[in-house]
């Protein structure tokens, strides 16, 4: 479980995140929806302790990120916005590197790699150097690497960015699998359809603030509209920076 309490972060005069609070529960997919530049990435970066919030608190399974960032990172699997893989290493070596950094044994890494490769349908590329991988193949490698240590909580920043339809479908399947395994999944997106299709709970962020936090059904009721797309536009106040 992940709790964010009143997070603030400014870069110079720009208030990137201005009081974000929400709770993401285990066994649920929580979608972070907002236009480009709304503060999603900065919020997530504070969550996985890359940045320190100016104010507010991050709790992961009850552990305060400001007190024990290493313990928090151990409980998180993170696919950041930046997802470069080491191109002179094979996909398997990329995954193993992160596994070792998590202190896993070689046997555990081998077993986890096998299972993840199957779930992400990447057996054919596993032992190739990642130089020349397609966007989808790189993303699969990056996701496998991010969750190699079997974390309770998984955070993905725009995981379907730049992926083709087939890979996007595989990705959605993988996210549902994570939910069924009882994990807490947070993913951000600026694509309304995707959030609508996957999420148990939708947190809408605009201008660094949470403007809505509800289930898809509640959101429709709140906006008095059957159309989720209409509802989003209403709560954000504009359709700018969003994609259907």
């Amino acid at each position, binding site marked *: 479980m992940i709790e964010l309490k009143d997070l603030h972060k400014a870069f110079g005069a720009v208030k990137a995140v201005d009081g974000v609070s929400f709770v993401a529960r285990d066994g649920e997919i929580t979608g972070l929806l907002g236009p480009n530049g709304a503060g999603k990435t900065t919020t997530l970066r504070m969550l996985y302790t890359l940045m320190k919030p100016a104010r507010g608190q991050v709790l992961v399974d009850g552990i305060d990120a400001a007190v024990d960032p290493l313990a928090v990172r151990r409980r998180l699997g993170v696919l950041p916005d*930046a997802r470069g893989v080491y191109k002179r290493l094979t996909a398997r070596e990329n995954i193993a590197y992160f596994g070792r950094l998590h202190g896993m044994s070689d046997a555990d890494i081998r077993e986890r790699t096998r299972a993840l490769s199957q779930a992400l349908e990447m057996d054919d590329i596993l032992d190739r150097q990642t130089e020349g991988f397609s966007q989808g193949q790189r993303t699969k490698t990056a996701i496998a690497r991010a969750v190699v240590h079997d974390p309770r909580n998984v955070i993905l920043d725009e995981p379907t960015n730049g992926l083709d339809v087939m890979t996007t479908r595989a990705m959605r399947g993988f996210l549902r699998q994570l939910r069924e395994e009882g994990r807490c999944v947070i993913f951000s997106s600026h694509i309304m359809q995707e959030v609508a299709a996957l999420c148990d709970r939708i947190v809408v962020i605009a201008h660094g603030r949470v403007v809505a936090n509800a289930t898809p059904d509640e959101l429709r009721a709140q906006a008095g509209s059957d159309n989720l797309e209409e509802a989003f536009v209403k709560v954000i106040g504009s359709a700018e920076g969003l994609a259907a």
Partner: protein
Amino acid sequence: MKTMLTVFLKEVRENLRDRRTVLNTLLTGPLLAPVMFVLLINAIVAREFDKAEKPLPVPVIGAEHAPSLIQALQQMGVEIKDAPADPEQAVREQEVDLVLRIPDTYAEAWRKGEPAQVELVHDKSQRDAGGPVARLRTMLEAYGQQTATMRVVARGLSPTMTRPLVVASRDQSTAQARGGMMFGMLPYFFILGVFIGGMALAIDTTAGERERQSLEPLFANPVSRSRLLLGKLGATSAFAVTALLLSIVAFSIAGQFLPTAKLGMSLTIGMRFAVLTMFVMLPLVVLIAALQTLAAAFAKSFREAQTYLSLLMFVPAVPTLLMSVFPLKTQTWMYAVPLMGQQVVITRLLRGDPVGNSDLLLCFATSTAAAVLVYFVTAAIYRSERLAISG
């Protein structure tokens, strides 16, 4: 410890797979300098010897006034040439190195036993002409001395009369020390080898990782950034040390190809030299790796990092230049200055001069302290939020 090793092994493996890095750092860097060194010294020596042994062409005006002088000069290896019409101008315009003018008053003065004057027209600012001028001057003086001796003997006096003072030169330099002067560039080559050896990795492990967007995911792992940094520094240092070792081996082989007989000096790089050099260079390697990583961490891009690190390469040239412009007597404080200390130790080892254990330790200790200091500064930069974020 285990995580540092993990980072270290990954960086080493990844960079060993990069052919360009391996070629540049482990081949071109350590091997180019010794090859150039040998070629350069051979070329210089060949040129000098060439000059000393070849007949010396001298344009002469008024050769008919002094047939015996001309004959003597020819015996000493001078090739008499026709003089240009305007010798002063010809020398100024570097058409000829020098001109010997024998005035028509020469014959009469010689006959009377008065000092007979000859004129040597030359341009002292022309370095290249210095050798021929000095050679001709020596020959003329020898001829004068010889004639003086004969005149004294002809009057029944002892020839030693005209030589009240004899200067005997006792050169105290050893063959190695004379080599040392010529090999003053060597420490710089070794230090440069370290710079080149670490450069690719310092850039790749920090600026490169950020530019390829892999630094942020790396920082999401439950490993403190200082451990990651230590692993990366270790890999950078390992490449630099390998480059240094190859440099030492390459120079010890290059020493065999130097014209030592002609030089009257030798470049001997033995085990003792290698071990002591490695000892004082080791902390410098870490210091340089940390400096390079620091510069790469400041850079916004891969290219910017390359520019910074190329500029950083000029730093080790400073003590080399200082010591060649102001050839200071070696003093204890010099050992305490990183870069300069290594320079002094390596130079003295090459010259075969003694280096005290306390001096070696001083050099090692201060460089280690500097390396630790720069590491802490780099670690502080590594902890900044800005570091991981690209663009």
